[in-house]
């Protein structure tokens, strides 16, 4: 026990002495947490639209007006024909082309039916998708209006089902509320797994581990002494992140803080186990960096930070279920947005703990004092 306390004292002393690393560890996550949610926004604005109006009628004018009035679109210009409009897309001036055929109004009145043509530049997938969707809904709405205005309400009264929806737990679909907890988790993920791995590899590179290995120090004491400082650092950074979320985005966890912190400790146990495992397989910083970067990249992209895990294919869902961050992101969202209790999140918590137990056991077995 005395040895452990002394080990911890040494670790904290070394940590505090590395001023550059310390300030980086604290400032960098804060900057990311403040900047990323602002930039990573899914509501697409400023979609450039080019219009080929071959009709020049009142109806077509009204339609164009409705599109530009929605706020999501910016009218880049009118083109005389489709090829001119395509040129605007090629020059990257337009993302969407809306072509209104000649005699649009006339045919609409006569045949009660007509078509417009929509061409979407799909190089930026999200923008194209959402832009197309927005435009389609605007046109549908426009369609309804025409029906109401033109068709005699008394004679053609089709029954309609109107779906009214409410967004629970995030009524205004505030994107920040959704993304801040996830970014916080991904920051904790990188710092805990990477820094603990680097710290142990550092001892390998400087040769100090040789001195430790020829001492009677027990390996579990040594490992515990390595992990506790990063557990403390992780808790500190998480707290800092919560405060930043509150200060900059006004996010206050709906659920109990202790539920959040219990989950955090379990999660850190798991991710530090991963870091430890990485360190047992790496002999240099470069190896440790490459290995941890591989895992953290996959974690950040696949664990549901930006995209929903539920919409992934079956095999991916199974794979993601063994990624600790996917569970912890769910937990933070459930607790922060929905106010879930410890019982509600117990399944995810158990999953994280189980993965952590496997990773830590593996790492300890693979850590040898003798070559």
């Amino acid at each position, binding site marked *: 026990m*005395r*040895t452990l306390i*002394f*080990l911890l004292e*040494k670790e904290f*002393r*070394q940590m505090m*002495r*590395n001023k550059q690393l310390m300030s980086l560890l604290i400032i960098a996550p804060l900057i990311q947490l403040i900047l990323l949610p602002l930039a990573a926004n899914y509501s697409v604005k400023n979609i450039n639209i080019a219009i080929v109006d071959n009709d020049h009628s009142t109806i077509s004018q009204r339609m164009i007006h409705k599109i530009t009035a929605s706020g999501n679109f910016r009218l880049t210009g009118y083109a005389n024909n489709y090829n001119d409009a395509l040129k605007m897309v090629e020059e990257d001036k337009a993302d969407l082309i809306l072509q209104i055929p000649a005699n649009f109004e006339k045919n609409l009145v006569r045949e009660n039916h007509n078509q417009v043509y929509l061409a979407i530049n799909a190089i930026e997938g999200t923008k194209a998708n959402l832009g197309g969707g927005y435009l389609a809904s605007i046109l549908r709405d426009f369609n309804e209006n025409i029906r109401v205005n033109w068709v005699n309400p008394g004679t053609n009264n089709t029954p309609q089902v109107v779906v009214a929806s409410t967004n629970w737990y995030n009524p205004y679909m505030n994107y920040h509320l959704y993304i801040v907890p996830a970014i916080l988790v991904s920051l904790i993920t990188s710092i805990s797994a990477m820094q603990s791995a680097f710290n142990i590899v550092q001892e390998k590179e*400087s*040769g*100090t581990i*040789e*001195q*430790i*290995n*020829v*001492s*009677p*120090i027990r390996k579990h004491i040594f490992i515990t002494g390595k992990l506790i400082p990063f557990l403390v650092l992780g808790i500190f950074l998480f707290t800092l992140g919560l405060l930043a979320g509150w200060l900059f985005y006004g996010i206050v966890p709906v659920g109990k803080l202790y539920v959040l912190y219990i989950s955090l400790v379990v999660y850190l146990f798991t991710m530090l186990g991963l870091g430890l495992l990485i360190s047992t397989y790496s002999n240099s910083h470069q190896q440790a960096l490459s290995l941890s970067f591989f895992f953290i990249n996959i974690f950040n992209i696949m664990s549901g930070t930006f995209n929903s895990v539920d919409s992934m294919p079956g095999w991916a869902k199974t794979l993601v279920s063994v990624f600790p961050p996917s569970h912890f992101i769910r937990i933070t969202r459930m607790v922060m947005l929905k106010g879930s209790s410890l019982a509600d999140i117990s399944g995810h918590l158990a999953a994280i703990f189980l993965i952590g137990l496997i990773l830590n056991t593996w790492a300890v077995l693979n850590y040898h*004092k*003798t*070559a």
Partner: protein
Amino acid sequence: MMISVSHITKTYNKGTIHAINDISFEVEKGEIFGLIGPDGAGKTSLFRILTTLLLADSGEAKVNDWDVVKDYKKIRNGVGYMPGRFSLYQDLSVEENLNFFATIFDTTIEENYHLIKDIYEQIEPFKDRRAGKLSGGMKQKLALCCALIHKPVVLFLDEPTTGVDSVSRKEFWDMLMKLKAQEITILVSTPYMDEAVLCDRLALMQEGKILTIDTPEKIRASYPLQLFAVKTNHTYKVLNELRNYKDTESCFAFGDSIHVTFKTPTDEKTISKYLSDKGDTDLTVEKIEPTIEDSFIQMLKN
């Protein structure tokens, strides 16, 4: 016996490289035993096996009657090891390092201060300095203190003075002599011949094998031929001419002179004459006693 090694073999790369090939030797209590040999001779592997950091493929080794495999815990408690490269915490101060190593061996600086006193006094003025900021000699003194702080019965020093200035090297060896007086057994490797002669016994290693084990005096005395030293201002030219001489056994530059031996007994005059016939007049030739380095070069050649 404080150290006994019998038939130790260690291979790397699935048995293709023999780092240590069937080595046996014994070291007595209070002895300074030197390991000499070119790089790659297997000295560091041997140190790592004896300090339980590496497992041998076959053979047995004991330190203070503790088996390196079965009693590894006792060995880790009872020996001091100074690896070839500086391996203390560079970001901790001198005092913090010493304190740290005392603690992980479950002791205190005060308890064994008498052992390190002479050495520590030399670095004490810098006790608040980070270890990484010390000079080479200071670092080695600190490393020795850290290896000694738990009062080990055997010290393993792997090239402790490599890269250290000659004054510090001398001071370092003075300390080893004092430790020897306290009956601490020392196994040390060194590339410096002036240090080798300070050992009680030497083992010359090459390619994982021990070529000879003896006292420095006997190794020197075992030199089989008469050695001549040739001094000249045209070392390179004379060296080539001597190598072309039909009777030359060996010939190499040694400091500011040339050391040369011949297959048949000869004298200074014959050599001088041969060289002056070649146009080299401004030189001296004399019979000399071989140094330990001459003996080693001779043995490594065979």
